[in-house]
C-alpha cells in the first residue's frame, strides 16, 4: 500500500511541491521582518527551482538539470556568504536586522 502510493508519486507531485516551496519562499521574503529569515526564503525559492530541474532531468533524461542544480546549490552558498556579511554590516550600522526599519532612502 505504502509502496504503491510511493510508486504512484509522479511528475506533478514534485512540481506541486516545488511550486508550494516557491510560494512559501516568496511569502517569507515578502512578509518576514528579520533579514535572516528573508534569506532563508530566498533559499527556499532557489531550492524550489532545484527540485524542478532535478525532476525534469529525471523525467526526460539528460544530465543538464542535475548539473544546473549542482551549480545552483554552490551559488546559493556563495550568495549566503555575501548576504550574511551584508546583514552583519547592517546590524553594525542600523543596530537591527529588521528589514522594514531599513528605509532611510525612499521616494
Amino acid at each position, binding site marked *: 500500500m505504502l509502496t504503491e502510493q510511493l510508486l504512484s508519486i509522479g511528475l506533478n507531485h514534485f512540481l506541486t511541491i516545488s511550486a508550494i516551496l516557491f510560494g512559501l519562499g*516568496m511569502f517569507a*521574503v*515578502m*512578509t518576514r521582518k528579520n533579514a535572516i529569515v*528573508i534569506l532563508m526564503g530566498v533559499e527556499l525559492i532557489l531550492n524550489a527551482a532545484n527540485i524542478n530541474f532535478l525532476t525534469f532531468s529525471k523525467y526526460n533524461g539528460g544530465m543538464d538539470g542535475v548539473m544546473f542544480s549542482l551549480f545552483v546549490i554552490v551559488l546559493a552558498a556563495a550568495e549566503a556568504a555575501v548576504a550574511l556579511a551584508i546583514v552583519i554590516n547592517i546590524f553594525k550600522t542600523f543596530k537591527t536586522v529588521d*528589514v*522594514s526599519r*531599513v*528605509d*532611510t*532612502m*525612499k*521616494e
Partner: protein
Amino acid sequence: MMHSLIQLSIAVLLLPLLSFVVLIFFNRRLPRMGDFIGLGLVGTAFGCALTIFWQVVVQHYDPAFRLAWDFTWLDFGNVPGVGPLQVKMGIVIDNLTAIMLAMVTLISTLVHLYSTGYMHGDPKYGRFFAYLGIFTFSMIGIVLSDNLFSIYMFWELVGLSSYLLIGFYFYKDSAADAQKKAFLTNRVGDIGMWLGILILYSQYHTFGYQEIYEHIKNGDFHMSQAWLTAAGVLLFMGCVGKSAQFPLHVWLPDAMEGPTPVSALIHAATMVAAGVYFVARIFVLLTPEAQQVIAFVGAFTAFMSATIAITQHDIKRVLAYSTVSQLGYMVLGMGVGSYSAALFHLLTHAFFKACLFLGSGAIIHAMHHEQDMRWMGGLYKKMPWTFVTFSIATLALAGLPLTSGFLSKDAILAGALGFAQVEGGGIYYLVPALGFAAAVMTAFYMGRQVWLVFFGESRTHLKPAEDHGHDAHAAHASHGHDDHGHEDHGHHEVHEVPWNMRFPLVLLATLSVFIVFSPDPLDGGKGWFMHLVQTPATVVASTEAAHEGANLSVPEAGKLLAEAHTDTQHVETAPAAHAEAASTEGEGHGPVYADPRQAEIAHMTHANHWNAIKLSSLMLLAGIGMAFIVYVFRIIDPDKTAQNIRPLYLYSFNKWYWDEIYDATIIKGSMLISKILAWFDANIVDGIVNGVATIFRKFAFFNGGVDKYVVDGMVNFTAFTVQTTGAVLRKIQTGKVQTYLVMVVVAVLGYFAFYIAQLIK
C-alpha cells in the same frame, strides 16, 4: 521724355515734401526757424501749379484734356495664373487735377503766409511749417495719383499729417485725444476704402483707374453686381472718413484743437476735400444703388451738422459744423449725380471757408485766444478788414446770389431735385428737402455768428473770470505757445491783424465772388468750371439692365445694356431734346450719356435749375431774416427760446450725443473685449495649451512663487494627470524592500491573470 507738365507736377508734388524734410531736421538751426523755406518752397509749388493751370485750363480749354505718365513701382515677375504682373505708380493730369492743384497750393501758400503771423513766437514754430509741408505734399499726392493704391498711400499720409497737426499742442490732453480720434476714425473709413480697392484688384490685378474702368466697361466683372455696388459704397467709406460724413463726422469738430491755420487747411483745401475728390475719381463706377446711399448720407450729414452748428458758442466749432454740412452738400451732389456741381462747390467752398477760418483765426488772435462768441461783439470797427472779408465769405457760404457759393450750391440743389424726380419721388424727395432745410439753417447760424462777433457791444467784460467752459482749453493753448499770451482776459486793446494775415483774407474774399467762376451771377453752368469739368459717362450697367443683368452671364448683360441703350434713344427722345436745348444755351457742350438714367438726371437737373434758384433764395432770405429777427431786432430772445425747447437745444448743443454713443458702444466695447481676451490669454490659453503647466507648479518647490503665471482655478486635465501621476507614483517607492518585492509579484501575477483572461476569451 516726360511731358513738361508732368515734370512740373512732380515738382509741385515734391517741393512741399522737401520743405518738410528740411524743416523737420534743421528748423532749429535756421534763422526764423526756416519759415521762409516752407513759404518759399510751397510758394514755388504754387507757381508751378499756376503754370499747369494756365496751360491746361486757359490754353487748352478742352473738357477732354488728359495727360498721364507712370512707372513700374513693384514688379511681381511672372506670377503663376496671372502672367507678368506689375504695380505701376503714376500721375494723371486733367482739368480737375489742374484746378485742384492750383487751389490746394494756393490755399496752402496763403496758410503758410498767414501762419508766419499767427504762429509767431511758438517754440515749435519751425516744426509747424514742416507739418504743413507734409500735409500739402500728401494732399497733392492724392490729387495727382493715377491709381487707387497710391491714392490710398497718400490718403493715409494725410491721416498722419492731420494727426501731427491736430496734436500740435500735444501737451494738452484734449489735443492728444483729438489727434488720436481723428486718426482712428479715418482708419475706420480707410478699412472700407481698402476693401473696396481689394475687390477691384481681385478682379483685374491692377490698381489704375483707367484700366479698371475699361474692364468694367467691357463688363468682365466676374462677381455679382452687388459686389460692384459694395465696392462703390466701400470706397465711399474712405470719403466718409476723410470728408467727415455721418457716421464718421465726429473727429472733425475736435480737430479744432489744432492751431487755426491748420483748421483752415484741413477744412478748406486738403483733408476734407480729399474725400469728395476721391468720390469724383471713382464716380464712374458707382452703381445707382451706391449713388443713392451716397446721396442720403450726404443729405443727412448736411442737415444734422447744420442743426448742431446753430447752438455752438465756439466760433471755430460753428465753422467746423458748417464745413461738415457743406461737405454733406458736395457728397449729396455726387450722390445725385451732379458731379461737376459738387466739385464746383468743393472749389468755391474751399475759398470762402478758408477765408472764414483765417478770419476767425484773425479774430481769435486779436482777442487773445478767446474763442467763445458770447464774449465777443462790436469788432467791426476795430477790425474792418477782417469784418468785410469775413462777411463776404459768410454770404458766399449762406449762398447769396452774386457769390460763388450761390452758383455751386444752387447747382447741387437743382441736381438733388432732378435726382428726386428721376428716382420717382417719394422717399427720394427727402434728399432735396434736407438740402434746403440745411440751407435755411446755414443762413441762420452764419447770420448769428456775424452778428455775435462783429455787432452789438463788446461783451468781453461779461466773461466770468474763472470761466473754463467747453472751449477753455484754447485759452490753455496760449499758455503753451503764445509769448504775448493773455495775462488777463480781453481787457486789452483789440487791434487789426498785421498785413501777412490780412492779405490772405482779402485774396480769398475776392475769390468768393461770382465773377471769378461764371459771367452769369445766377448760373454756374455758364462758367468755365462747369464747362471744363463735366460729368463723365458712367461705366456700370444702367439700372434696369443691371437689375436683370446682375445674375446673368457677362455677354448677356452686355446685350441687355445695349438694348436698354437703344430703347432710351426712341423712348426718351423728349428729354433728350430738352437736354440738347438746355445744353445749347449752356454753350452746347452737354455730354451725351450712354446710360439712360444718367442722361435723364442731367436733363431734369437743367429742368429744375430755376426752381432751385427760387427755392434756395427763399430759404436764404428765411434764414437771414430769422437771424435778424432773433439777434438784431431781438423780437425773439434766443436764450428764452433755448429754455422753452430745452431738450431740442441740448440735443443740438451736444451734437446729437454721437460722441457719447460711440464712446459707450464701440470704444468701451472694444476695450472690454480686449480686457477679456487678455485675461483669457493669461489664464486659459496659457494653462490649457501648456500641458505640463503643473510641472512648473512643482517647479515652485525649488523657487517660490514662479507659478503665479500658472493660473489657479483653471481646469487643466493634462496638468492634473501629470501632477497626480507624479505624486502617486512617487509614493510607490516606499523605501521598504519588501513592498518592492510585493510590487514585482503583483506585476507578474497581474499580467499573468490578464493573459489568462485573454486565453479564456
